[in-house]
């Protein structure tokens, strides 16, 4: 091997290694990885995936071995009869058997994944450009609306009814289950039964416009008691503002017409065009999973909405007097 060839192989090897690291590092974050299943259905799908990966590797190894045998170990002409058996066995019988097995396994799995029997909880989720309207149906009968956040009790089966009022979106929480499209005019269902507590991340998995990549949400799986407490708190109207700054913020919020699009239960704000903000300060993210929830993020979001999320329906309120933005941010942060 000349130095030139050696150099070429080294470069090829290092490029391959770099690409492999890049490829595998993208799946490192467990909370948005389908390879770290945290629900009954996701575990079933992951099992199927790993069996297929293993089977694919074995088939690849066998094909490579046959190629080596035919080109290096025995490069002479092979008999017509043996070649014919190889084609019939490896090219016809084997694929038919493998594909039939995979198909039957998949078909047996599908009714289990889509069964809506024994449901403990019902949640309506509407994908809207570019946020998520989440409505919990409660035993008391009064639905509880929130946005861009889903909390689930561990070990209980939650039925999601998925819709969209505008364009096609797709609801996907990779560690909890496969994605399901949200199609205008249709209601698709999805059942998730989480097996682990923790915080996960969901995303829109169908291109839905300029801010599609900024349409995410947080998912928290909790112990059933903690979940019941949380849902009970979410059902309450908003607490009156505690600080002077927040009181000024509430006045500014109502005076500037924010209530035309947003609801804050317990106040005059009862708009339904945008997300319900009754307990927005208690949420895990702002702007559909793209900002943290703190007064600085609220100030930035209200003042530069269009810059943070292009083409969003909410106008930027950067023109407000300087003292109003921080006051509104304080008010919203206190909506726990």
């Amino acid at each position: 091997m000349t130095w030139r060839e050696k150099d070429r192989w080294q470069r090829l090897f290092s490029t391959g290694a770099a690409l492999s690291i890049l490829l595998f590092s993208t799946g490192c974050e467990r909370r948005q990885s389908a390879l770290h299943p945290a629900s009954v259905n996701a575990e079933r799908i992951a099992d199927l995936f790993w069996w297929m990966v293993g089977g694919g590797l074995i088939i690849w190894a066998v094909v490579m071995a046959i190629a080596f045998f035919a080109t290096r170990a025995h490069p002479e002409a092979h008999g017509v009869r043996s070649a014919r058996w190889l084609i019939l066995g490896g090219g016809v019988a084997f694929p038919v058997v493998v594909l039939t097995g995979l198909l039957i396994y998949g078909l047996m799995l599908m009714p289990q994944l889509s069964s809506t029997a024994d449901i403990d909880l019902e949640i309506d989720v509407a994908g809207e450009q570019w946020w998520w309207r989440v409505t919990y149906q409660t035993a008391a009968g009064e639905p509880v609306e929130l946005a861009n956040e889903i909390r689930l009790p561990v070990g209980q089966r939650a039925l999601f009814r998925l819709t969209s009022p505008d364009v096609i979106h797709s609801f996907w929480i990779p560690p909890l289950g496969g994605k399901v499209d949200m199609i205008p005019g249709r209601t698709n269902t999805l059942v998730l039964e989480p097996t682990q507590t923790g915080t996960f991340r969901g995303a829109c998995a169908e291109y839905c416009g300029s801010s599609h990549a900024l349409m995410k949400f947080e998912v928290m799986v909790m112990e059933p008691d903690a979940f019941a407490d949380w849902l009970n708190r979410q059902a309450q109207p908003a607490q009156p503002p505690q600080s002077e700054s927040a009181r000024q913020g509430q006045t500014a919020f109502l005076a500037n017409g924010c209530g035309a699009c947003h609801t804050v239960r317990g106040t005059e704000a009862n708009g339904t065009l945008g997300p319900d903000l009754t307990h927005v300060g208690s949420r895990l993210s702002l702007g559909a999973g793209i900002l943290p929830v703190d007064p600085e993020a609220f100030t930035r979001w209200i003042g530069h909405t269009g810059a943070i999320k292009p083409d969003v329906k909410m106008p930027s309120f950067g023109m407000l007097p300087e003292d109003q933005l921080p006051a509104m941010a304080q008010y919203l942060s206190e909506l726990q």
Partner: protein
Amino acid sequence: MMDETQTRPEHAPEVPPGSRESLWLLVSGPTIWAAHFLLSYLAVSVWCAKVAGRAGPLGDIRIAIGVLTALALTGIALTGWGGWRRHRFGEATLPHDFDTPGDRHRFLGFSTFLLCGLSFVATVFVALSVVFIRSCE
């Protein structure tokens, strides 16, 4: 050992008397498969939309698809058998790639047979879905 693929055109027998080559037999298998898929899909769609409801059972429509599948598989098998007989006509063996009427006859037969094999498996795969999925859900 004589290579069986080297069949000379002058040794190839002529086409059977009265036969007319056409491509209809070649496309029959895949056409039956496509028709079976379309009819099954339509039948289940109409059943779930108009009779059983979105979460209702597939019920009797599974039997209808079973009958349809038996008919389709019989049609594909008969077509495949016809293709096999054309492929086996005369003394020549594979590949049928000489530009003679006899080899054209055998080539069309062999292609028909292979396509029927594919169509048979594909039709069974379509039918398997109603064996394991029993509701419209």
